[in-house]
């Protein structure tokens, strides 16, 4: 009887722990967990300073009122960042014709600020024939800010075996009121498009009222 009780207790608490630590069976990896967490609890983005490709500094506060799509890159990246930025280019092209596209901005933040000078960031953008008007590439202005930014977005960067980096890849959406509201993976481009369409439409209604 005592064994039965003890087993019952261990089993119930164990299943509960597993349930809670996977957010109810919805997130098994850290990547899934951070996407889910942001969806359920949007967080205000702190006001960091960044330096753009023209070597001008700006803060997130300056971009209040825009939907911002943020991705993380380093310009010497041979693979993932190219796809990330390539997708962003397509997104920029697709949304250029949309009515509210002036409410949409793209921001590529480098996590390799030592190597990625404004000059190199500019080259990176030109490489994707980006429209500089609403796509900015930027670097953190200090290493402590870099760490704070990566920690906030829960982007994990690890050195790879070729002297480059492997990193969490995705598109982070910041709402006009300055909150991180959603994260999409590279495989979720359709969902990202649908989300942005809806968000920009909502923006339309908001301005009419």
């Amino acid at each position, binding site marked *: 009887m005592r064994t039965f009780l*003890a*087993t019952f207790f261990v089993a119930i608490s164990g299943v509960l*722990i597993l349930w809670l630590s996977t957010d109810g069976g919805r997130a098994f*990896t*850290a990547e899934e967990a951070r996407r889910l967490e942001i969806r359920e609890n949007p967080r205000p983005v702190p006001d960091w300073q960044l330096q753009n490709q023209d070597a001008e500094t700006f803060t997130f506060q300056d971009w209040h009122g825009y939907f911002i799509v943020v991705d993380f890159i380093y310009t010497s990246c041979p693979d993932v960042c190219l796809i990330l930025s390539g997708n962003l280019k397509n997104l920029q092209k697709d949304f250029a014709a949309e009515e509210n596209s002036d409410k949409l901005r793209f921001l590529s933040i480098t996590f390799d600020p030592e190597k990625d000078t404004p000059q190199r960031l500019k080259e990176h953008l030109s490489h994707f024939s980006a429209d500089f008007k609403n796509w900015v590439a930027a670097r953190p202005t200090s290493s402590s800010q870099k760490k704070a930014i990566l920690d906030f977005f829960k982007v*994990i960067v*690890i050195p*790879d075996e070729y002297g480059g980096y492997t990193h969490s890849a995705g598109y982070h959406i910041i709402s006009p009121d300055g909150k991180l509201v959603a994260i999409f993976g590279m495989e979720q481009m359709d969902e990202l498009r649908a989300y942005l369409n809806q968000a920009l439409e909502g923006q339309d209604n908001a301005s009419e009222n």
Partner: protein
Amino acid sequence: MRLKIKPEKLLLAALIILALPPIQHFLEQSMVTHMLVQLPALTVIGWMLGRALPENWSNKIAPWNRWGITGMTFVVIIMAYWMLPRALDAAVSEWHIELAKFISVPAMGIALGISWPQLNPIAQGVLKLEFWATFMRLGWLYLDLPDRLCANYLLSDQRIMGQLLLLIGSAWAIAWMLRVMFGIRIINT
């Protein structure tokens, strides 16, 4: 002349060595050493501690753990938890999860050491087979997945891990087969 050191002390020393930041960092740098060296080492330390437990302790636990059932339930749950990719990631980046690992995995080893010998042979067989199948399933999964499961580890690491799991699983299967078919005992499990 033999040095007389109590085995428990030696095991605790081993646990502390594994917890030393440089060793810990070194073993957690790669998925392979994290999963195939650190976690098994912590389990083995626990297992040996469990076997070295004083008699009166085991007598007190026994009525709560008949046939080792409670202990094995605990073992299965802790193993399942540390198989979650996000648990492994969290252990690398958050100290309190790391602490939980250094407590729960040796505790699981202790439970295993106490409970396994008492477990019904059929239940032993089922669990052993399931454990082996997990090696094969995860090995296949790691080789096949295009994406990384752990944010802290490289895809190439995940591939090597997959190959090793399949290799170990296969070696294990061959050892079992030799024993079942020809009665050759290579390993003791």
